[in-house]
């Protein structure tokens, strides 16, 4: 019961505690205007270069932008605690670490999902994109899976915040890697083999492909393999993140790394 409460209630309160500073004047431009701009940029580049269609760029970039909350918010949820000197207090509580840190992921997943869906909707409204009605529920689901999978990577990044302070800088690098390797603007099949192979081990890649297929009329059954692979990649990063959290917490006790810059 305690762990469940820490997971749900604690996770939500922690999210409020870390991001209460975001008022709508900052939140709306950063999570609505920015992804729409990215979508428009690449869609028009695609049009002027005569490659791809609007739908390709809308789905790729909308899902890619979910990485902003998934990576940065997860990183900040631990890094911000360190900056505010609350992390030491949190770590002296007897709370189990898995629900404590996984609970923080839940609001982040919803946030990422919301950002991606705003992007998809904006694409439909502003560009030449048509998503068939029956595809919407499955796209909603796949976007949720993508967001969860990317939050797993964010958790691993957050774990690194127990050791280093520069997770925001790291977040920029990882976002760029996802943009290039996950088939956001260039299909994975068109990337050099090694880049495609790397993309296969990153979150988003399989979900982006699945969402494009769904928008083109495939069913959930047709893309089940891709969705499962996306879930698998997300689970891998989540386990890695939790293991890193455990390891860095132990190391902070051994080497006092929490006290260092």
């Amino acid at each position: 019961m305690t762990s469940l409460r820490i997971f749900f209630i604690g996770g939500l309160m922690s999210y409020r505690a870390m991001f209460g500073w975001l008022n709508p004047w900052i939140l709306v431009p950063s999570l609505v205007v920015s992804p729409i701009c990215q979508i428009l940029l690449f869609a028009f580049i695609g049009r002027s270069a005569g490659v791809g269609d609007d739908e390709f760029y809308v789905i790729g970039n909308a899902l890619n932008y979910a990485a902003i909350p998934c990576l940065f918010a997860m990183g900040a949820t631990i890094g911000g605690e360190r900056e505010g000197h609350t992390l030491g207090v949190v770590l002296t509580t007897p709370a189990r670490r898995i629900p404590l840190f996984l609970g923080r992921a839940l609001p982040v997943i919803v946030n990422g999902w919301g950002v991606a869906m705003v992007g998809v909707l904006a694409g439909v409204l502003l560009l030449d994109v048509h998503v068939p009605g029956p595809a919407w529920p499955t796209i909603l689901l796949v976007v949720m899976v993508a967001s969860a999978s990317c939050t797993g990577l964010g958790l691993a990044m957050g774990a690194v915040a127990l050791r280093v302070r520069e997770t925001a800088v790291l977040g920029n690098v990882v976002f760029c890697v996802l943009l290039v390797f996950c088939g956001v603007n260039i299909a994975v099949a068109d990337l050099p083999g090694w880049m495609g192979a790397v993309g296969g081990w990153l979150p988003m890649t399989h979900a982006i492909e699945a969402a494009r297929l769904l928008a083109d009329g495939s069913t959930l059954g047709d893309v089940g393999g891709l969705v499962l692979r996306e879930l698998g990649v997300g689970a891998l990063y989540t386990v890695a993140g939790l293991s890193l959290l455990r390891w860095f917490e132990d190391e902070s006790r051994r080497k006092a790394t929490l006290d260092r810059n």
Partner: protein
Amino acid sequence: MSAVQAVDLKRTFRTRTGLLRRTAKDVEAVRGVSFRIEPGELFGLLGPNGAGKTTTIKMLITLLLPTGGSASVLGHDVVDDVREVRRRIGYVFGGDRGLYERLSAYDNLRYFSELYGVAPREQKARIGELLELVGLTGRERERVEGYSRGMRQRLHIARGLLHDPAVLFLDEPSIGIDPVGARELRATIGLLKEQGKTVLLTTHYMFEADELCDRIAVIRSGEIVAEGTPTELKQRVPGGRVLEVETYGVPEATVASVGEVGGVRSVAMEERGQQQVLILQCEPDAEVTQGVLARLGGVRVGRVVSREPTLEDAYVELVTRA
């Protein structure tokens, strides 16, 4: 069974410098500290900055592993029984940080109630009691970012008490608080003692330690150099007396030379506005005033006062002794 026990507790830090040619240096922060705190006792750990107080506390609250010796809280080893120790302790540190600024005081307490596993049905009543105890009733719905330092510090204490811990570690809780806030805080700590809590308190304010602590250990350079009741520690300045000399613009070298005057055991300098007050621990029958004034030479001197030693004098004597 003691509430807290440290036996030959040690902590060494390895620091590395350089990017390509890395050089490592070991710093011994705590060098074999031993003490016991009995249940219900308020124990003070005093020492200058960098003496090892916070490092000792961090080992006792499981945030740091000792590199030598052992420690236990209510019979639970701080290395092996980490969760059991964490269930039974509260940790409060001084300063502005350590609270969620954008949450209200109430939400801060609610969040930590969850982390400490306070039963949902008890949370509201417990938070209400603690807000009352620390004098924040009526202000609990305000965001912490609007709180004064004293209010934050009292909220820290309420947070540390949420799960009704038997042992409380207070690391310089009154640092930077104005005199009224500090007095209120001392009253709160006094109430904890009345409730039977075991408290380990570190502070730089000697009158605070004198007023609150049952026993005190003085730590210097990672070692305990004295332990006893405040009265016993004052008696550590045997039959001595204290000479206070107000000066203006005294150079460091002159202060050192004053310490060489016959009959002077030690000298410490305290900045008080534009004044530098030299506090000299002297032998009981030594006549040092003339010798000291001679060493001060051209330095402008204000009042010269002779008085009985206080706990602060005992502390200064202990931490400045070579």
